[in-house]
C-alpha cells in the first residue's frame, strides 16, 4: 500500500479508508456574489501538478474531514490537519 495518510485522530492509514473531496484552498463565495463567482466555485476545477491542499474524508475511520497538503505527482504528504482546525487557523 503505497498511499498512506496520517490521520490526526486515527494514525497511519491506507488511502482506501478515505474519500477525496477536492480542492481545500478555495473559500466559498458569499451568498449574493455574482453568478460567475459561483460558477467558478462549483464547476471550474484546476488539475494542478505539484503541491496542493485537498479535503480528505476519513470515511472508514473517524469520519472527520481532513485537509491534506500533498504533492499530486509524488504523493509526498506534507501535512494533515482536521478541517475544523484548518478553518480555525484560517480565520485567525
Amino acid at each position, binding site marked *: 500500500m503505497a498511499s498512506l495518510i496520517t490521520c490526526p485522530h486515527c494514525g*497511519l492509514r491506507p488511502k482506501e*479508508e478515505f474519500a477525496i473531496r477536492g480542492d481545500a484552498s478555495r473559500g466559498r463565495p458569499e451568498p449574493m456574489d455574482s453568478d460567475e463567482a459561483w460558477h467558478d466555485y462549483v464547476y471550474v476545477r484546476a488539475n494542478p501538478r505539484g503541491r496542493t491542499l485537498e479535503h480528505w474524508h476519513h470515511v472508514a*475511520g473517524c469520519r472527520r474531514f481532513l485537509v491534506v497538503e500533498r504533492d499530486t505527482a509524488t504523493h509526498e504528504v506534507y501535512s494533515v490537519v482536521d478541517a475544523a482546525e484548518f478553518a480555525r487557523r484560517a480565520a485567525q
Partner: protein
Amino acid sequence: MVRDYNNRHALEQKLRSAPTPSAADHLMVGHWRTMATVLARTGQAEAVRQAIASVPELSLRFSGPGEWLVVSEVEAPSGLVRRLGELCDGRAHVVDQSDGRVVFRLAGPNVRSILAKGIGLDLHPAAFTIGGSANALCGHIPVNLARTDEDTFELIVPRSYAESLFDDLTKMGRAFDLTAAFSD
C-alpha cells in the same frame, strides 16, 4: 415472549448447524450484546471519557474525536442508556445500538495472522495494546476493532454487514481451522 416478532439474530442462518468443538482459534458471536454510541458536546470530550472510564464494567471503543461505542456485558439496553445518561449528565448524546450492531470475538494464537488478511492496522502486541480500539476497514467492511485480551479481538459491525463479515472471517481463518459459534 413479548419480543418474539423481532427476536432473530442476523447470523441465525449462518450459525444454524450443530456446534462443533471449538479449535484453538475460535470466533464467538454474541447473541445479544448491549452497546450505545456516545457523542460528546463540543469541549466535553475529556470529561465524558473520564466519567465513562470510571465505571469498570463499561468498555469504551474509540470511533472518532469525542465519540465512542460503549459496550456492556451486564446491562440491558434500556439500563445502559439510562446509566450513560446519568454519567454524561447532558454533556453527550447517547443512542442505543444494541440491535443495530453485531459483535464478533476472535480469539486464539493465530488471531493476528487471521486479522492481518483483511485489516491494514499494526496489530503487534506492543502497537495495539489491550484496551486499544480503532475504526478500520476489514476488506471493504467498516468495523470497530478492539483488543480485549492478550490474544482476543472484538469486531463490531452494523447488523446488515454481519453475514458478509462472517463469510470473510471464515475465509480468513480457514488456514488455521477457525471454528465459529454463538457464545451464549
